[in-house]
């Protein structure tokens, strides 16, 4: 660590790199034949046939029937029913940005700025906010076990799935013209660059360039419209592993887990910033509704 500190200091003060000259010189990188890399690579194209196959059958499954629809139906019931300590329904109290009770098209226009909360919020965060502020549920309870596991599905997950289902076949249109949203978008752009943790990973380590894979998994480049669309489409998603319904909030947390980062708090500003960055980059792309995931 001492070297790193010295290095940082050297850089920060823009002084001569002569500092630390007492350190032994780095071993010279042995010469390697430059042309080797290309000729050595075994065919990669073959693998992508498997990916195409997965995509084909996923599309077929969504068309024929995605269990996510079961959660949409449950969410719709919850949206319409008077619930919580205040005994009001979300349908008569919750504004997802297009007016109280308006669900159609709301998902593809979030994250957006909500003046009543004084914050930019993504769909899940907004639903939770409404459940707390309008229905009187305790925030701590909703935050305690926010994601599905086993046979348990949080209520907000089903509600978000219902909300998302009502933006099916509509285009993403995160209101970037709103300066609040734009500001959060720019913060998100910085979050994805932030390298830290034991492996020096940032979001961009995996998701900042085209055509990369981890094992067989395609890594969308979230800085492009196409890549961002790949990352945003399909959430919330019915996950075949474990048969659970999971939200985009959950996926952000799992990214950080694999990045060897600590856990982002549920419904936090950082996660909203990330979702704002990714979803706005996908603006103009048609949302295909709740998806199906591996």
């Amino acid at each position, binding site marked *: *660590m001492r*070297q*790193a*500190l*010295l*290095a*940082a*200091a*050297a*850089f*920060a003060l*823009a002084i001569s*790199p002569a500092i*630390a000259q007492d*350190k*032994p*010189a*780095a*071993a010279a*990188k*042995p010469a*390697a*034949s430059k042309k*080797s890399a290309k000729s*050595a*690579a075994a065919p990669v194209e073959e*693998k992508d046939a498997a990916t195409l196959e997965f995509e084909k059958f996923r599309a077929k499954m969504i068309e024929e029937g995605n269990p996510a629809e079961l959660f949409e139906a449950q969410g719709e019931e919850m949206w319409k029913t008077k619930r919580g300590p205040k005994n009001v329904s979300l349908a008569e109290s919750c504004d997802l940005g297009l007016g109280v009770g308006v669900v159609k098209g709301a998902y593809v226009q979030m994250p957006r700025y909500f003046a009543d909360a004084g914050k930019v919020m993504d769909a899940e965060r907004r639903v939770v906010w409404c459940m707390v502020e309008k229905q009187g549920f305790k925030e701590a309870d909703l935050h305690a076990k926010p994601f599905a596991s086993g046979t348990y599905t949080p209520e907000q997950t089903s509600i978000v799935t219902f909300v998302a289902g009502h933006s099916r076949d509509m285009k993403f249109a995160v209101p970037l013209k709103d300066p609040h949203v734009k*500001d959060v978008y*720019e*913060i*998100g752009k*910085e*979050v994805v*660059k*932030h*390298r*830290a*943790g*034991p*492996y*020096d990973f940032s979001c961009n*380590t*995996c998701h900042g360039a085209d*055509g*990369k*894979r*981890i*094992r067989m998994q395609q890594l969308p480049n979230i800085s492009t419209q196409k890549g961002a669309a790949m990352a945003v489409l399909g959430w919330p998603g019915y996950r075949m592993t474990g048969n659970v319904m999971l939200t985009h909030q959950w996926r952000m947390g799992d990214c*950080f887990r*694999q990045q*060897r*980062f*600590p*856990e*982002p*708090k549920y419904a*936090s*500003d*950082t996660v909203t*910033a990330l979702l704002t960055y990714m979803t706005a980059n996908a603006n103009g792309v048609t949302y295909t509704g709740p998806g199906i995931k591996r």
Partner: protein
Amino acid sequence: MKNTARISLVAMAMIAAAPAALADSDHRAKALAMMKQDFVTKGQATADRIFEDGLQTICNRTGNKPPEGITKQLEKDQMAGVKYPVDGKLLGDWKEGEKIAQSGRGFTWTDEPGLPVGGNCYNCHQIAPKETSFGTVGPSLFHFGKLRGNTADMQKYVYSKIYNAKSYNLCSEMPRFGHVGALKPEQIRHLVALLLDPESPVNK
């Protein structure tokens, strides 16, 4: 990591005092403040991991393109921290290396602390031809030794590259496996064997 965090805060403070051209953008500052507030410890993934160490700060500040003038020296500093096996042998058992290369475990909040950490190699690299599920974040390493030879220099290069990839490329995407204690010297030399041993399937 605690120590790292403290030092990196010092480093950040120093950088903050740097000339205007190097100053944080408004949004980067906001992002750092936000992350500081929003991340919590879970399992072995402690909240302080969100802080950068000195090297990460430099790479983050410069978009992974540190000024040429200082890069070489900083790489040398990284190289200086590379520790070699006590017996000096850099070529281990490629079969053990393959096992380490396969495992992607370690350091996440769902990993049991204390269990062996994997090399994560196949996550990003093509290596032995038998494993067809490999990533492409890093270059293919198939035929690595066959094309480059199994010389003492090459062994030292591969060893130190795995130990601390930043010794050769300051802002390399590759983790510093030895430097952060993910892999022990004995494990790294098994990986050296996987890449260089003429008997390794990589070189068949």
